[in-house]
């Protein structure tokens, strides 16, 4: 009985809230700002907008962990790395979600390029593994991701990203495809201390989401973040601290009125500029 209940909760949650099968936002900084992160540049941009990585000047690497609604079946682990080359930035990322009876994994590489001071472009290819051991087996599929980032003024950016523009098919049965997500967002930097971001996200299967986030640095090394997103309503809060200017520890939590808390943490090594 208990297991059945659990499975149905997991099923409900994973299908309608967490996972549009193919993309899940990761990185504590992004999560704490309600994932209004399509214009933000850090190593986690791998999972949000490949174009934003073009602004990386030094290499960085990070790992992140999130637990949705404090359920042990809904844990996610992720990784990303970005290395600037002479021309452009090359990046790689990985993300895994689920538990023994359901696990999805994505792993891939991307390349980002500054076309001019005002305009960046990025592309990515990811392999998706979906594993349902009880009689369904394992599938492997490839998807393509792309993004753009444009600077309107030095403090104002606009970004666009699409996940799975290839509309990759998962199986022929019922035309089951990995989800496709489009994001259009903007961010405005009021000062060194304050960044505000807003974004619209359309997942092909779900209503459009509006998201907004604030990042405030009361001190150089310390950040407070908060965010809000609609459909479903979600509130976020998080903190970040920079050790020796290179090691970034970010943690935070999302809150859903019906399902509760989703704590997340990420640890990033970012070589100083």
């Amino acid at each position, binding site marked *: 009985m208990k297991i059945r209940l659990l499975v149905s909760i997991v099923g409900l949650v994973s299908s309608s809230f967490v996972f549009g099968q193919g993309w899940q936002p990761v990185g504590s900084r992004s999560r704490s700002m309600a994932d209004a992160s399509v214009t933000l540049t850090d190593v986690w941009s791998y999972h949000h907008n490949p174009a934003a990585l073009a602004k990386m000047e030094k290499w960085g690497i990070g790992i992140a962990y999130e637990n949705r609604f404090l359920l042990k079946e809904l844990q996610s682990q992720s990784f990303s790395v970005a290395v600037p080359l002479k021309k452009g930035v090359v990046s790689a990322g990985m993300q895994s979600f689920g538990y023994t009876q359901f696990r999805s994994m994505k792993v891939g590489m991307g390349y980002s390029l500054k076309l001019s001071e005002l305009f960046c472009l990025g592309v990515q290819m990811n392999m998706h593994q979906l594993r349902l051991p009880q009689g369904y087996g394992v599938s492997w599929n490839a998807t393509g991701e792309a993004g753009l980032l444009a600077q309107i003024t030095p403090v104002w950016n606009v970004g666009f990203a699409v996940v799975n523009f290839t509309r990759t098919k998962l199986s022929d049965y019922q035309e089951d495809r990995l989800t496709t997500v489009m994001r259009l967002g903007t961010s405005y930097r009021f000062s060194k201390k304050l960044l505000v971001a807003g974004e619209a996200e359309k997942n092909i299967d779900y209503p459009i989401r509006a998201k907004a986030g*604030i990042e405030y640095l009361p001190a150089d090394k310390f950040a407070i973040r908060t965010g809000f997103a609609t459909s479903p309503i979600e509130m976020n809060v998080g903190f970040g601290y920079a050790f020796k200017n290179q090691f970034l520890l970010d943690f935070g939590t999302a809150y859903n009125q019906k399902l509760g808390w989703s704590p997340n943490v990420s640890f990033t090594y970012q070589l100083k500029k």
Partner: protein
Amino acid sequence: MTRAAIVIIFLLGWTFQSFAQDKSEIIQQRIEFISELYQSEEIDLTTFLEQLSYYYEHPINLNFTEGTELEELGLLTSIQISDLVLHRKLFGKYITIYELQSLSYWDLETIELVRPFVKVDDKLDNIHITFKEALEQGKFETFLRYQPMMEHKQAYDNVPDSVQAISNNYYYGNGDRYYSRFRYTYKTNISVGVTAEKDAGEQFFKGAQKKGFDFYSAHVFFKGGKYIRSVALGDYQVQIGQGITFWSSYAFGKTQDIATAKRTAIPLKAYTSVDESRFMRGVAVDLAYKRFGALLFASSKKVDASTVADSIYNDLEFISTLDLSGLHRTNREISKMNGLRENIAGANLTYHQGLFKAGLSGVYQGYDKPYLKDMKIYNQFDFRGQHHLNFGMDYSYNYKNVAIFGEVSKAYNDNLSGMNSGWAMMHGALISLDSRMSFGLVYRDYQRDYYSFYNAGFSEGSNTQNERGLYAGFKMKFKTAWSMNGYVDLFKFPWLKYGVDAPSQGHEFLIQPIYKPNKIFEIYFRFRQQVRENNASNYAGAVTPIEPNLQRNYRFNLSYVINEAFTFKSRFEMVTIQSDSKGFQKGMIFTQDLLWKPKSSPIDLALRYALFDTDSYDTRLYSFENNALYVFAVPAYYYQGSRAYLLVRYSFLRHCDLWVRYGVFLYNNRSVISSGAEQINGSRKSDLVLQLRITF
């Protein structure tokens, strides 16, 4: 040639004329700014209006204020105020008001907003009052208002006395409303006044109202001593902390301006409105000694209530319901009149040091008969009994760009079941993240068995009870003409409510981008979404389920000051609601206002024409209407039809002002308006206000 020259000179003069405004217009603008924050028919901005018109004539000296007066303006945030006070302490007195621009949390727009009410002066105002001076410089003000019944309503039908004596559908009095007020004020230091009112349907010098008006209110109020900060005798208002333990007047709810989330308590004020239940009647004094303050108050007044005699204990009477409407028109209403005596005594001790303030409060409220409202599952935790106590602790502190505030309160009463002793608390912070962006957070947790009769705590529900929620809001300005406001509020009602047969939850958010390229032109768009759970109206089975109700409001607003005489305002607003059992409904309103206030004319006009079309009463929309001074109207527009009004103000003989306002609703698709006693046969509902003010 000459003619052309005259035209050219005229045109040049026109262009270079400054947009100088007169007092009433300046105040009117700020009042509209404040009233925009309200979304209800019940508003009373009398205090704001009085405060503003006083400070217009007696500007606050920025070189001496400690901030209290600035808070009373209702136009500034506490961070801006503490910024101003701190800056003066660090860098010395201000030389000009424009120096405020150099402060981190001030901008030119804020300065323009408060400029008429403040000054920068080196000399300290003399607050010594002599009797002679008070009499000579004091101001007398008289108001007479008449609001006749325009269309015949069912309740005024001519019926035989025998029918009227056994019915509750007929009113004894006529349908006119009379109001009069007399008040003497000397600066803000002394106020003596009498207010009297007869509501529509109440008798005048007859029947239940042998003393003439149905409602009288009088006060004597003094403010400004060093140790005795203020004293009130008669009717007064008390505000404590954040409005959880005790707050006798109304306060802002959730508004698009985050600054209103923080309450600024004015401990003691004279009462000059005509709400017949929300005020104190008795004595009160506010004392100060060094950093300490003590507010002591006692009130005893009769309230309307229906009395039930207990059949088992014959002589024991108890109260089953309280009636707060203040209307005494029918047999039933008259029989409830003054059915219960309410006694209140309270104290608020405060301590402040710099920008830190803390207070302890205790309030007793008791009745002369037990109050035992009908026991229902949803209201089982409400107050029942005769005696009730509240204890509270409140604080506020400003540190750099952060203002924190809050209150914790506990209720006790003599309820036999002993269940009612709940807690209530709220804590908030307003943070100026940047000179162009501020952010606010309010958390509240009011238990289901917390009870306080007079309260105004920050809440989604109508009471400071049975609610838990988190509110976050922001206000930001971009470098261009754009700015943006917004908030998010998530709330839970841990116990049942009236019409909600299960614990429920919901959310609300609002976003409002504003485009204001200059002082004369402004456009804004507002989107608000609210979800609350209510009982479903169609369901199968024995248990009433609850279902979410989604409401969305879209508003587009344009205002344009064409020249110094004309202001043009347009608004389009739409509301949609949706739930499983009621389906989808919508409503819209389209208003056009024109204000004409020529500079040197004794007459000014306000004109509105509006069309509205709503599917139901549930999709009604509220809109602020201009009215005679001290008459506040934010009526609901519903069904289908048109609305028009014309307000004329005429100033004459230097001391007199006359307001005449005629408004009319013409409904398109109905031949009967309202129902029951208030029913009007026909499709027209109109209203007329005549008001005369004499000041000398």
